């Protein structure tokens, strides 16, 4: 691999900038830089313009905090979405993942992260006040779709404590087996969590049977 020092300064600068990107190591940065160097000026101009445009035009939806070029994002503007269900996520990119799944027809709320004292993120740094303000309008269900990490779980617990007194239905996304997955091949941890989070299908009319107490309390 050529050493960065023997590169002409402008090329070295490009390599340096590229290697700051996530998942890009020094080798990939070099490959990308040489690719850019060998690309037609016009094409490179489009890339440069796209980079700046995304910074200038994209901002956060005034309601949910998702990406948009307008005041409100496409989901929040969509009159056909169920406004009484709000799915709470950590990052805007999570909305895109759930939208790809396509089965959720409600609205979103982006927190902007998860509670993590180690990283100095406290509830006040998240868009929680904005979420509570949205609950004034009739809301039937809050779906907590924060990550299953320690921090995501803590955030879900925190929100549960906060929202519970408002008498709104709160749900947590399930963790478990991959779709089409064969039980036999699932790793033990996933399987154990799937068992822990099992849901009731029929209780033969026996209310308060002890297995109904499983899952998230």
């Amino acid at each position, binding site marked *: *691999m050529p050493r960065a020092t023997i590169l002409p300064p402008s090329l070295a600068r490009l390599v340096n900038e590229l290697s700051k990107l996530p998942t890009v190591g*020094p*080798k990939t940065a070099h490959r990308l830089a040489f690719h850019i160097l060998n690309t037609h000026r016009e094409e490179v101009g489009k890339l440069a313009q796209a980079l700046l445009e995304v910074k200038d035009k994209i901002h956060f939806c005034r309601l949910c905090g998702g990406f948009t070029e307008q005041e409100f994002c496409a989901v929040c503007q969509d009159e056909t979405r169920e406004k009484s269900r709000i799915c709470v996520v950590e990052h805007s990119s999570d909305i895109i993942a759930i939208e790809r799944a396509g089965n959720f027809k409600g609205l979103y709320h982006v927190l902007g992260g998860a*509670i*993590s*004292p*180690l990283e100095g993120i*406290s*509830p006040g740094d998240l868009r929680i006040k904005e979420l509570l303000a949205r609950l004034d309008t009739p809301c039937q269900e809050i779906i907590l779709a924060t990550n299953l990490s*320690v*921090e995501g*779980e*803590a955030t879900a*617990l*925190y929100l549960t*404590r906060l929202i519970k007194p408002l008498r709104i239905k709160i749900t947590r996304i399930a963790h478990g087996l991959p779709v089409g997955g064969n039980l036999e091949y699932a*790793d*033990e*941890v996933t399987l*154990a969590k799937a068992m822990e989070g099992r849901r009731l299908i029929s209780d033969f009319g026996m209310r308060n049977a002890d297995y109904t107490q499983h899952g998230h309390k």
Partner: protein
Amino acid sequence: MYLRKLKGMGVRNLLPLELEFNPKINLFLGDNGAGKSNLLEAIYFLATSRSFRTNQDQEMIQSTAPGRYYSDKVPVAADHQPANLPDYQPGIYLSGEVSAVDGDSKIEILYQPPRKEAKINGKPLSRLIDLIGHLRVVLFSVEDMAVIKGGPHLRRRFMDISISQTDPVYLNDLQRYIRILKQRNRLLGEIRDRIEQEDLLDTFDESLVKTGNALINKRRSMVSEINPLVKGIYQEIGGSQKEVQLEYKPGVEEDDFLNRLRAKRREEIRRGVSLVGPHRDEIAFTLDGMNARAFASEGEARTIAICLRLAGLEYIYQQSGEYPLLLLDDVFSELDEHRKQYLINSLQADVQTFITTADEHVLKDLPLANSSVFRVEKGEVVSGDRKVAK
């Protein structure tokens, strides 16, 4: 299970190596500082992705100038490095071939800080902790001799490493618990310094209790399974009639966890540290009803320590259906003749055992028909004279 082959480079003073092991006993002989224990450390690292001698894994990496390159095992000086070297960074690479009841597998681990990656049969693991359980080991080192009289962390570590290697759910919970604890400790400090509101603590209390109780549960049943094993092995040793008992003493009982957190809250905030939970667990050892930590003689405490490791070996066998590797790091020098003999006699035929020692005399005590001797000099395994009876 046993480790058939080990390849490696970059581990402390060891030159690049490629060794074939005996399925029974492997003896690493050499002077102090020659690199015997580094070989055990390499095996332990392959099994757990951790060192057993340091919390700073970087210390394991060969401390030579970056760009060190080997030509036929001889290190090449930094200013004579060949041009166009592949992007060489100091680091550790290990690969091992493991034979187990459910077939053979190849484990690889690459450690170039901050990168640490593992592969099983060529397939990269998305999480490093999934490595654990593929090559199971029980380590007995000089430090572990102190397991009875030393600090409680030694006894907790024993429970954790024994359970984790046979129960991935436990390992996952343990990792989460440690993370929750770190978050909570930071939070306590912030509440004390009035940076953060106290109500956030309720959330972390709830997480701590849920995950902590899962640990307490499994540790309790582990200790109750291991208790009769230790007792039996202890009486076998030198025909001692004294009775060893282990009792699991959780830092807090499951149903009392939340109450105790409430009761200790003010003190926790003042000190900025979590005071309640399984991170304060203990195992109490008694010898004929007397607290072994206080009343056992040094020799008795060492004997119990041996018994505990051998019971750990048996526990893993019972849980997983096969024996783990037994790594004995320099423990012979710490034992009197009688206990040394017992330990050698108790090396079971179906347990692959690795022994390091500077004492040539150990050789004459070993069933040499079933052992391979490796001599280690200045970081190089100079001979692997195999005397294998297959």
